[in-house]
């Protein structure tokens, strides 16, 4: 979606027929909306694509058409990606609930989680926390981490990006400067802006668009390189692709070894927790062994991975109960027939449940998880 949007916003000179500005703006808006609907970090992509719209606005002939272009872009974004943001705004008066949105120390939208506090707790910071931003990029891109995880915190993009994509972008940029090809610099500039904007920008999961830029750079350069350079590039692409293929097979979130271990377990222990037993500590383990398989379980706002709460037959009912109203939280839990609540220590819901007489704390692990029983 990102690549298509960029292609529509930066028409190549060799293409004769091309949609006019308003059509392009609508298509870019729809694509930006799809990205926005995928996850919260999509907001930054919409801002970056909004910057791309400037080129279309400059090319449009009159003020009336410029307004139409802005409206079509905004309409496309809202149509494809606005629903949950509007829902959050209506329900919690914050489109990005539960994150608190601040601009210049002024709270624009109140929430229960501060983005800076959320970012400061990330486990990757134990390794790269003291590095300046460019060293963080270098560290993850050179793939120091031996293990790939679902969050891909310190696992990079693989050899194709680091060995080929990154140098290709640099060369493409130099060639563009020498040729005064401002479109190329514009595209690279938008990617650079987005890289600076996104949170956790050393984590590849938030910066996958860089691989796209590397691929475009290789495609743009391939036919203009000298023959022997092209030969070296081709050999490195093949070697890098084979190694990347092996890495993706060997370093999946659930590796071959993990699946073999899971197969050796008796059927009653083949629960989601045991897919990755080292990841889930005392809280999840106690929950797995002590809570009845047919219980109804609600998980708290601060639980990011609810799947280990299912039992091995996947019959346990696991539901999200979100609240900002302390008076209604317990009543909502009871109305939904919830037997147990699983949540992280120290959150808003933890405070409500800890002070309620109808709810009892039955387990508190040293890994930060609490389990409450609803009477």
């Amino acid at each position, binding site marked *: 979606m990102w690549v298509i949007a960029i292609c529509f916003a930066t028409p190549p000179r*060799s293409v004769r027929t091309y949609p006019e500005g308003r059509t392009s703006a609508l298509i870019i808006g729809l694509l930006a909306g799809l990205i926005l609907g995928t996850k919260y970090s999509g907001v930054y992509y919409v801002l970056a694509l909004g910057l791309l719209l400037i080129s279309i606005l400059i090319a449009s002939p009159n003020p009336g058409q410029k307004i139409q272009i802005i409206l079509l872009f905004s309409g496309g974004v809202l149509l494809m990606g606005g629903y949950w943001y509007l829902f959050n705004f209506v329900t919690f008066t914050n489109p990005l609930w539960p994150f608190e949105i601040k601009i210049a120390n002024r709270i624009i939208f109140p929430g229960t989680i501060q983005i800076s506090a959320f970012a400061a707790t990330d486990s990757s910071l134990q390794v790269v926390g003291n590095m300046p931003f460019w060293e963080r990029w270098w560290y993850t891109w*050179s*793939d*120091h*981490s*031996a293990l790939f995880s679902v969050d891909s915190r310190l696992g990079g993009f693989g*050899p194709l990006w*680091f*060995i*080929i994509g*990154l*140098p*290709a972008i*640099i*060369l493409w940029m*130099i*060639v563009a400067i*020498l*040729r005064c090809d401002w479109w190329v610099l514009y595209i690279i500039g938008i990617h650079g802006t987005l890289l600076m904007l996104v949170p956790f920008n050393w984590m590849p999961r938030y910066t996958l668009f860089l691989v796209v830029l590397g691929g475009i750079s290789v495609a*743009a*350069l391939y*036919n*203009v*390189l*000298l023959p*022997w*350079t092209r030969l*070296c*590039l081709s050999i*490195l692409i093949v070697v890098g692709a084979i190694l990347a293929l*092996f*890495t993706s097979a*060997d*370093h999946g979130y659930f590796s071959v070894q993990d699946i073999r271990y899971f197969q050796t377990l008796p059927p009653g222990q083949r629960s989601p927790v045991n897919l990755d037993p080292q990841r889930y500590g005392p809280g999840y383990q106690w929950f797995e062994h002590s809570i009845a398989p047919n219980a109804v379980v609600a998980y708290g706002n601060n639980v990011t991975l609810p799947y280990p709460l299912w039992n091995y037959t996947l019959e346990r009912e696991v539901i999200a109960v979100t609240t900002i109203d302390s008076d209604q939280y317990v009543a909502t839990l009871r109305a939904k027939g919830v037997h147990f609540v699983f949540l992280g220590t120290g959150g808003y819901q933890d405070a409500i449940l800890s002070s309620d007489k109808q709810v009892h704390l039955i387990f508190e692990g040293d890994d930060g998880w609490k389990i409450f029983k609803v009477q």
Partner: protein
Amino acid sequence: MENFQGTVMQNFVLANLWRALNIAFVIIMFVFMVRYFAIPERALHYQRMFDWFTAWY
């Protein structure tokens, strides 16, 4: 990038600049490749790759 080769290679200065950039590009790619594969943490990865290959062979 159309007609890039034709335009550049006709000019002596530009042709040599382009050759120098090509050489620099290849050197950077090889330096990055050495940097990428020389990381100690990847020893286990190589061992597994070797094991996979020998098991398959």
